């Protein structure tokens, strides 16, 4: 069953130098129990897409057009108070920056207990017991002793796990996880991913997993969406996108993954940088860096067409060729 639909959303930041479109018309669907990996160039708009879903775009930024629907109901136009209730209860957000989600003046335990009392209506004692369970679930050693500590007394990776526990403890139906495991070593990472997968399997929770770690994507996601300069350039099943990427940017990304044992003096990189989002040139945003670009690429913007196990936006595909 479809849980979430993004319908051609455009996110804009008005700035003194004119409006800046961080997301330039993006559509996606997500089913219950599904894990969608969202990858792409740093600055491509992954976090902003997450913020659009959770209603957390920082003003003066706004969703200029398009719709976000949760179980068919529009949520992009709700009053802030209503949206706050949906967030937490229906949508759990794990932010890229763990410090913004943790309040430095409350202990980790107080924050977890509060969240569960508000969203699940538990009493203090029950909530405290669950809070300890959650800390253990995300792999914090000695959870009982840690419960009464403040965020600054935790290591970077431990804080990240507290944020994960906070997002999960209200048992939301949709989880937006923005780089949830970047600060974590591989063994803790494995534990968190196993936890997310179990929630999907057992509770039908759906997850949008933003990460640049292809190992994590390969292990966890069902589908993968690839973003570049505010747009989706490729979407498909995880096996196809990782093993047989179609879009030249996705190919470049896959080739850049460092490998243990490789003795090359330099890592493969995609030459150049992503263009600024302001005053985009006509044509494909990746054209200036694309080794396969043809003349059309510099003049006409490619629109997504069916290819592989999903869609790809590139002139090398579709009926034009």
């Amino acid at each position, binding site marked *: 069953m479809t849980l979430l639909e993004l319908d051609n959303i455009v996110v804009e930041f008005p700035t003194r130098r004119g409006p800046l479109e961080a997301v330039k018309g993006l559509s996606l669907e997500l089913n219950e129990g599904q894990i969608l990996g969202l990858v792409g160039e740093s600055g491509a708009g992954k976090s902003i897409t997450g913020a659009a879903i959770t209603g957390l775009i920082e003003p003066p930024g706004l969703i200029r057009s398009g719709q976000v629907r949760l179980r068919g109901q529009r949520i992009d136009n709700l009053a802030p108070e209503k949206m706050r209730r949906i967030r937490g209860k229906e949508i759990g957000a794990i932010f890229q920056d763990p410090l*913004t989600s943790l309040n430095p003046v409350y202990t980790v335990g107080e924050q977890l207990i509060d969240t569960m009392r508000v969203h699940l209506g538990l009493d203090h004692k029950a909530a405290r017991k669950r809070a300890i369970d959650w800390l253990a679930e995300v792999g914090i*050693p000695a959870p009982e002793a840690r419960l009464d500590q403040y965020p600054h007394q935790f*290591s970077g990776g431990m804080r990240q796990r507290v944020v994960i526990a906070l997002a999960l403890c209200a048992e939301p139906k949709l989880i937006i996880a923005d780089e949830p495991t970047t*600060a974590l070593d591989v063994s803790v990472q*494995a534990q968190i991913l196993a936890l997310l997968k179990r929630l999907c399997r057992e509770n039908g929770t759906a997850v949008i997993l933003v990460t640049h770690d292809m*190992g994590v994507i390969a*292990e966890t996601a069902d589908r993968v969406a690839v973003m570049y300069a505010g747009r989706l350039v490729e979407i498909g099943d995880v096996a196809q996108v990782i*093993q047989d990427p179609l879009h030249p940017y996705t190919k470049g990304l896959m080739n*850049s993954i460092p490998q243990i*044992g490789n003795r090359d003096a330099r890592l493969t990189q995609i030459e150049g940088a992503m263009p600024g989002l302001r005053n985009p040139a006509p044509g494909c945003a990746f054209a200036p860096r694309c080794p396969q670009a043809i003349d059309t690429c510099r003049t006409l913007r490619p629109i997504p067409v069916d290819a592989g196990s999903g869609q790809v936006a590139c002139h090398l595909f579709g009926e034009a060729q």
Partner: protein
Amino acid sequence: MNDQAQSPDILSVRKVSKRFDISEPFLNRLLERRPRRILTAVDEISFDVPRGKTFAVVGESGCGKSTVARLLMGLHTPSAGTIRFEDSDITHMAPGKPPALRRRMQMIFQDPFASLNPRWRVREIIGEPLKNFGICKTRAEVTQEVEKLLVQVGLNAADAKKFPHEFSGGQRQRLSIARALTTRPELLICDEPTSALDVSVQSQILNLMKDLQDEFGMSYIFISHDLAVVWYMADVLAVMYLGKIVEVGPKEQIFENPQHPYTRLLMGTVPKLTVGGIERAPVSGEVPNPISPPSGCSFHPRCPLANETCRTVSPELKVRAGGAHSACHAADAGRLPSWTRMAAE
């Protein structure tokens, strides 16, 4: 530079410990008769960073990597031990002091969000140390240098006008890298410098760091949990577990024939790009707790080779065939099974 007169190591750390007092306030303790609680984040570690090389540190979340970095930068005071930068004892130096020395030693923090002043524009954030340390004399020079640094880390010269909140996570990390490079430090401490970056930008930054090393002989302390990145960057690799270095030595040696069961376990949990069905077994056994660490070898509760000695006596770092050092009774007694990375895969 006249390398002759200098020692081969730019930084030397000897028996450095950091203990945090995490007890409840005195009155609560008195009323509830709770004991004082001490968390040992770093436990008597010693290492040397060779000049012009990369000393990488890996280890589980919470094992003390960032605490080591902060101790070196003077952001924490060691509870014991000494830290020397070349011939200067910097063990009890305040952060930023003395300036002549500190500009030679910079740090990229794990959290790019907390380390950039939100009210400053990029040109001020990066330009300030350029002016402060007298690297650039005129405003035009500052502007030019700021723009050059931005392009080096894969941003645009026009980004100099923006504020930190206008950047994405990975772009902010690149700003903090650019800022750390302003004073042309000789030693750069990097705490997870690229974990917020996508792999293609990561390649750009790591290639840049290698170029700087080749060109200016920079030394790096490189903290990361990504073993593939460590493989690419490291010359010397140290593996930490619960505040201690359990194995240290030449990178190749440690990747190819690790001499500590924890290192072997780490090498075996690297995620693979194989799709579907794989479920990496999370490491079994009790997760260590630095507030009351296990007796003997702190890895023994999770170690498949642990015996009675391991449960009671703390093993010491000893040199192994191949030149790496590891702290393990099984290795001492020749009980480590033979190992190849292939076997772990």
